[in-house]
């Protein structure tokens, strides 16, 4: 892409195709300006501006839903598809909810506030571009923007050693994964540009060109190596086995809203990339013989590892991190099925949204129960929650039930769609492992619900000793309404999918 192309893009309003990302970027700058301009006592309004801006962007996205559908912009860097639009909504909703959680969580810390929202906005814009990228350069730039933003967010509570440790771990692991990804991209670029091979191309970073080249060379060793390395790089992001090792520590150390961001949005971004590469029309379509076994092994190991490792956890952040690993495994089954089953795409998107709704309900409750030490959130702290705050306990139960895949909640429908798609595509063994995983997962999700509902909290016996658990935060109006809406959405989407279901199951 040269200067001419940029001029061209400016001349024909191509920039308008990425107006949501541009809005978020500008909004991020506005927040910084507001911090300088506004007197200190009015700084509370900045968070409102951030949330309102995201909400406005979401509305704008719906208004201009199909303005650019099906087109490639910026010389093929971006490809605007329905899937891309859906993922944009996914990231915007995540960002909105993260901002809400941040308001609750940051109130307990003596930390600068504005930068947090600023980085969340930038990261969200990067994710949205990532989901629409059609070119490895775009992919890498967007991925790095998002990852660097997340390094900062993970270590945001800089007075907490746990947060700093998590930030460092995430940095090292993230850098390694970026290195692998980049190496894979370079190998693909190199081999696809080799004039000695049939179908070689100078535009080999472009997905469609690369797909054409790979189809002409269906068993090239260097290309295979490149593909495996790219998959490994993405596997880091979604926390799939064997690249899940950072998950528990980072999830525990990161501030709870950031944990939610990592668990939901960052994972969603990883899957958007995977679908772009591995589905029936993806860049790696000609290498199904390689991609399918790799992903199958990964999915099986991810489900088993995530569920079994979660069994022994007492810290809820580690617990939900490892349960998130197993959810990545279920989603990977969907990706595998997407090679030959049209239903799989709808299944993955439904699963992702159900996961978003349920996860944020749970994270919302966690934020309200956390104390000043954000990393210290134990299962024992939930004892007696049902008596003290029936509302939070109900939201928690609905969220966890949906994550566990219990009907009539949305999570069950997500699992059902993925299972049907898996069976249709012939992944029977994976289906068996997934069913087993669901049974195992019941143990720890139910243990959590049990702690909240069946156990009673006994304060320390000696009089005068400090209470060993943080005080519960009172639920504010906005937070209460949002959590209630999330719980309700989990229930309603389990019963009635309506037009959404019709859209998802379209053949």
């Amino acid at each position: 892409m040269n200067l001419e192309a940029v001029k061209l893009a400016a001349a024909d309003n191509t920039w308008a195709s990425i107006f949501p990302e541009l809005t978020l970027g500008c909004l991020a700058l506005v927040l910084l300006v507001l911090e300088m301009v506004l007197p200190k006592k009015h700084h509370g309004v900045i968070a409102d501006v951030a949330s309102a801006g995201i909400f406005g962007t979401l509305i704008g996205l719906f208004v201009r839903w199909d303005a650019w559908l099906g087109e490639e912009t910026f010389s093929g860097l971006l490809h605007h598809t329905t899937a891309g639009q859906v993922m944009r909504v996914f990231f915007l909703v995540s960002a909105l909810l993260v901002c809400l959680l941040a308001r609750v969580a940051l109130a307990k810390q003596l930390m600068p506030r504005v930068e947090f929202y600023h980085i969340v906005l930038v990261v969200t814009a990067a994710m949205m571009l990532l989901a629409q990228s059609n070119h490895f350069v775009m992919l890498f730039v967007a991925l790095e923007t998002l990852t660097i933003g997340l390094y900062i967010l993970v270590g945001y509570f800089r007075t907490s050693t746990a947060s700093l440790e998590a930030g460092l771990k995430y940095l090292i692991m993230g850098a390694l994964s970026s290195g692998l990804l980049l190496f894979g991209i370079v190998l693909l670029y190199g081999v696809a540009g080799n004039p000695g091979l049939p179908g070689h191309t100078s535009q080999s970073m472009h997905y469609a060109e690369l797909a054409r080249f790979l189809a002409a060379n269906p068993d090239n060793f260097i290309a295979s190596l490149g593909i495996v390395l790219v998959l490994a790089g993405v596997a880091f992001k979604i926390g799939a086995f064997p690249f899940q090792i950072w998950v528990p520590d980072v999830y525990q150390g990161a501030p709870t809203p950031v944990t939610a961001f990592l668990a939901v949005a960052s994972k969603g971004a990883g899957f958007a990339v995977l679908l772009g590469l591995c589905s029936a029309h993806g860049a790696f379509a000609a290498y199904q013989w390689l991609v399918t076994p790799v992903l199958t092994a990964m999915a099986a190991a991810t489900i088993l590892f995530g569920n079994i490792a979660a069994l022994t956890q007492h810290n809820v952040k580690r617990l939900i991190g490892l349960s998130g690993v197993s959810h990545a495994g279920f989603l990977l089954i969907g990706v595998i099925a997407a090679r030959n089953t049209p239903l799989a795409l709808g299944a993955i998107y439904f699963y992702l949204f159900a996961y978003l709704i349920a996860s944020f309900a749970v994270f919302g409750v966690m934020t309200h129960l956390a104390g000043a030490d954000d990393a210290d959130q134990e299962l024992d702290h939930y004892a007696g929650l049902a008596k003290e705050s029936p509302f939070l306990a109900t939201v928690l139960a609905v969220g966890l039930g949906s994550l566990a895949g219990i009907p009539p909640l949305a999570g069950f429908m997500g699992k059902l769609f993925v299972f049907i798609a898996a069976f249709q595509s012939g992944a029977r063994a994976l289906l068996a492992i997934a069913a087993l995983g669901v049974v195992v997962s019941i143990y720890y999700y139910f243990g959590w619900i049990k702690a909240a509902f069946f156990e009673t909290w006994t304060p320390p016996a000696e009089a005068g000793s400090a209470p060993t658990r943080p005080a519960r935060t009172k639920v504010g109006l906005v937070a209460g309404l949002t959590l209630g809406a999330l719980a309700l959405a989990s229930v309603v989407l389990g019963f009635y999918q309506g037009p959404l279901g019709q859209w998802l199951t379209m053949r």
Partner: protein
Amino acid sequence: MSNLPFDPLLMAIATPLGLALLIALGLPKRWTVRLSYVAFTVPLLMALHTWWHFSSAPATSGYAFLRTYSTGLDGLGIALKLGLNGISLPLFVMAGIVGLAAGLYAIQSQAERLKIYLMLLLIMHGGLMGVFASVDVFFFYFFHELALIPTFIMVGVWGGRDRSYAAMKMTIYLTLGAMISLVGLIALYVKSGANSFDLIALRAHLAANPLADTVQNNIFGLLMFGFGILVSLWPLHTWAPLGYGAAPSSNAMLHAGVLKKFGLYGLIQVALPLLPSGAAHWAQPLAWLAVTGNVIVVGLVTMAQRDLKQMIGYSSVMHMGYAFLGIAAGSAIGIGGVVLMMVAHGLSVALLFLLATSVHHRTHTFALDQMGGLAQKTPVLAALFVAATFASIGLPGFANFWGELTIFVALWKFSPLICALAIAGVVISAIYGLRAAAWVFFGAPTARMTEIAAKHPPMDLRWTEKAPALLLLAALLFLGFWPKSLSDPLNATLAELKFQSRSLVTKIATGQPALSR
């Protein structure tokens, strides 16, 4: 045809669920109790209405009262399709009766946090009505799970001894069963190629294009073990006595009485007609598992129980063995017997759980060897308990008799040896049933009993306790004397579904052991 201005089946499902929603939104306690009477009664009225009008209602593909509501998944062949055929009608009516009895008993129980208790029970009841009214296999499964969730919570919160352990164990076992059967149902859906979960469409499609034998065998195996866990097929039954022992009475009534029938109903309504050769393949292992495991082994274990509630729990596991035997026999008469037995067992086991709790209120213990002589103080309770025991054993005059009798008739054709073993089981159940009644109500009161009686003089049943018990007993007697009222529609459906009888009898002429169909 139904002359109601609304769909009676949807009404039966929506009323309890609607009230549960109202309670969740903060209905005051006084209104909760008042409206609960209505919400527990409406499903029964709807069930009686459908029963009365069943033969005159126009039927489509064997189903009366058929209605379809779209939930947005028509692309996958999923829609809320409600209807009743001859197999589901008896169970729908039974669910209505047991639901009302359990509801009435719950309202008078003075449980802690009664509002939440009633809400969960209402969700369960709504789900149960949905299970038997669904023609769509997906919703059939969905409603079962909906009814199952409250069980875990009720056992965990309101349960008795070991409630935490019991709740956890039940959850894991039942989820395992549900997952295996879900995989089986998905396999059926995908393999059939009908692209629909609608049972009518599946039947039509599979009648025209039957599945290959291996496929049928695999899917039937999945469904048999998946549903089997839910129905407590030996050796995967251990959750049942433990769970029922810990469950609060109304929950145990609904779960053991109605919800557990889901698995059997699924086998009869879905697996047997759609997978005939799979059923034939598994008939022999299933029959032996059921007769040695559920009937003989669990029967003997039941005899050794000294805890009243555990004993009832084990006896219910044992009686499920007869149901499996009828399914293994596979003939129309055997299946008809299973359906009648499911109805009868649902009523009688609910009655037994209800009375066991009433006994506990008077003796403050479930330990059989610490009771005695209660009949002098509480003659009505004693009479009801003895009647329930007779029903459970299967004496003539009660509905259970017809179910067991027809199963034995079918079983004799299948294999005289298994039939003989199964009949031996009846003797076992007579021993433990009558012995328990004797321990509780007759003989001299034990020292502990006299001590308790001095502190809390036992009162006979109050009307609020008597009403649900009499309702169940009346239903048992009505069906015992007039089974035709349910068996006529049942026979029509069974004839239509063409169940084939099987036989394990060795063909001497050819010298091959054969499983003829």
